[in-house]
């Protein structure tokens, strides 16, 4: 049954990296499209817009970290791996996998709104960044949940 436990953990790790990565890819793309539209008129805003575009990119990194932590755990636990360990690691990956996927996309929607706000009022880009970062709180909580569950 050793293989099963390992396989379960690795499926979880793969899901964490893949789903959160997909969310971030979609999110960064959404932000990029909006920023490119604004920059066709105001190229000088590049510095402010690139930050807003990059914000939904962090979820992918969180998923990646959880995947790395799970893999480290799996290699460390070759000797005794009851099936329960496999399931535990699998479920530990789910918070960042699911919340990463969804929150990156919703954060991107917020980022697009903030990009449009910055286009009209470049001075308020800091507030736009702050409002966009609020969405990320839940991705961070999910990351912490995953890390604590991996143990």
């Amino acid at each position, binding site marked *: 049954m050793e293989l099963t436990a390992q396989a379960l953990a690795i499926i979880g790790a793969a899901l964490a990296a893949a789903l959160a990565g997909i969310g971030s890819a979609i999110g960064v793309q959404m932000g990029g499209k909006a920023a490119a539209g604004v920059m066709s008129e105001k190229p000088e805003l590049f510095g402010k817009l690139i*930050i807003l575009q990059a914000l939904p990119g962090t979820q992918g990194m969180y998923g990646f970290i959880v995947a*790395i932590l799970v893999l480290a755990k799996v290699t460390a636990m070759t000797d005794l791996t009851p099936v329960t360990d496999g399931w535990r690691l699998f479920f530990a990956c789910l918070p960042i996998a699911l919340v990463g996927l969804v929150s990156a996309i919703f954060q991107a929607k917020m980022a697009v709104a903030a990009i449009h706000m910055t286009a009209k009022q470049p001075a308020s880009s*800091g507030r736009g960044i702050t409002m966009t970062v609020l969405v990320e709180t839940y991705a961070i909580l999910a990351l912490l949940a995953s890390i604590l569950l991996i143990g």
Partner: protein
Amino acid sequence: MIVKMKKAQIAVLSEDREALLEALQRSGVLMLLKSSDDSVQEDGADEEQLAARTEKSLRLLTKYHDKEQKETEADKFPSVPYETFVTDDPAHRVLLEAIEAADETIVRLKADDQSLKNELDMLRPWTDLELATDRVGKNRGVVYHLGIVPVAKQEDVQTIAATIGAALQFYGSAADGIATVAAVILEEDVSSMDALRLAGFLETSLPPAAQTVKETILAKEAQLRENADRIRAAEAQMKDYAGAKLSIELLNDRAVTAAERKKAPVTPTASTVFIEGWVRVDQLDELDKAIASATAIYELELFDPAKGEIPPTAVKNNKFVTAFETITDMFARPSYGEVDPNPVMSFWYWMLFGMMMADFGYGVVMVLLFAFLIKKMHAKGETLKLLKVLMYSGVTTAFWGLLFNSYFGASIGFMDRVSILNPVDDTMLLLGISLGIGVLHIFTGLFMRAVNSFRHKDYMAIFADSFAWILLISGLSMLLVPSIVVFAGGAAVAAAGKWVAIAGAAIIVLFAGRSSKNPVARIGSGLYALYGVTGYLGDIMSYSRVLALALTSAIIGQVMNQLAGMVQGDAWWGILAALPIYLIGHIFNLVMGLLSAYVHTSRLQFIEFYTKFYEGAGYEFRPLAIQLKYIDVVSDAKN
């Protein structure tokens, strides 16, 4: 700290108005107010239009600027004496007009070239046509038709021509077929042409001319060559002008400055003008000097801000704190009456930023990189402040890197002595430290609230709105921590914590609703205020992001080292192959880490810290000043 303001009222004779405004603008210490309904502002449209024209010309000139003549630092912001800056030199406007004329010539000739090229494309297939184009048509019982025959249909057309007795002559090939002349007998013109068209002959025409096509082409080519010469001449001229671009830059900055001055609100009376504005108390001497330099006859009166008047906010801090003002200003400018949050905030921002990055190597790179950028970019204003924030934060990044034993993602064995933990292994410990630092940060916010209450002489608020919360949160922490971490005397701490928390909660319930007279309503709103404890717990949990980001930075750094390590192997040359991976990997991690630390540290200040005390309803102190975009003005010795 926030600088005190005084309101200045200045009256001078009408004829001294320009001199006064110029002197005020040069000193840059007075923020003019639109004081009464009688005050007049000119619109400065002429100057703004001139500024727009100079901007456009400067953009044009950058294209022609000699690439080989590298711009030195001095060229970028040339220094100009004040006298030169304010003196209008007609030669500058002549140059501007010359640039605009040369540009217009280039644009017109290029458009002309394009239409010439289009015509040539159309004519080229007919180069060998012997007829002058105005003689195509009926000719001694024969009609000549010009047309294009697609290559695929050439044989069909030839066959039909043979059967109906028409003569075909093929010329050069055009884009959509072969240029062809068909000669048909006058009487059979209509029917023959119908047959030919059916076979694929597409009739066209050429612009009628008294010369052969060859002659026309030669003439147009000559025209093209002449245009090219003229364009080259105009571009050479532009290159010369680009060498004198300082004149245009001067003109631009002068025009913008003049527009600013024209828009200044001034109240005229019969023989005097009256100006009102805000001045910082530490710049009163400069104001006096500026006015005296413009005229000997003036009246200057200074007032404290009246009740209900809100002066603009100017902050003055030491070099370190000044840089962090950009973070606060991004959120909201401090109100005039409140305590400046920047000195306290800057310390916390500095520490939290370093904790999130936490790598000795990255810290050193940050200090060097941003110091270099500050020197290289000639940064001014907010950009300069932000670069400085990042440079200073490099120091704390290196400091926390020492504590976490992290050097470009790797740990060094013998440096264990100075390190306190490893984020990857001691996750729970770091979580505890993060939340603990969060509690301290929030206590600082509550302390700032107390300071503000003290300034408003609301001593009850210090006790009920700041001290009580500190009691409650301390008590809850004392209650909670021993149940997670076991240590000697933990039980006693927890028991004491219970009473501390109860004391805090009691004060909140009894005094938070002190504004209402009705005792029931008072307790009710006290209980509701106590419910705010959930908000505080949420705020404290929010500091777990410090752990998350420190962990992210550490793990990605380690992964990059692993990847590079796989390539490196054991061979001595492995390091060469691995070097690009080390480099790209750590640059990526550094950039992403900077972005995350910047936004999340800001967030902790804005949402968790500033909500405790900060009002932030101020507006910027923006004095009438010289507007410089391209040049530096050096004042001459006298002032």
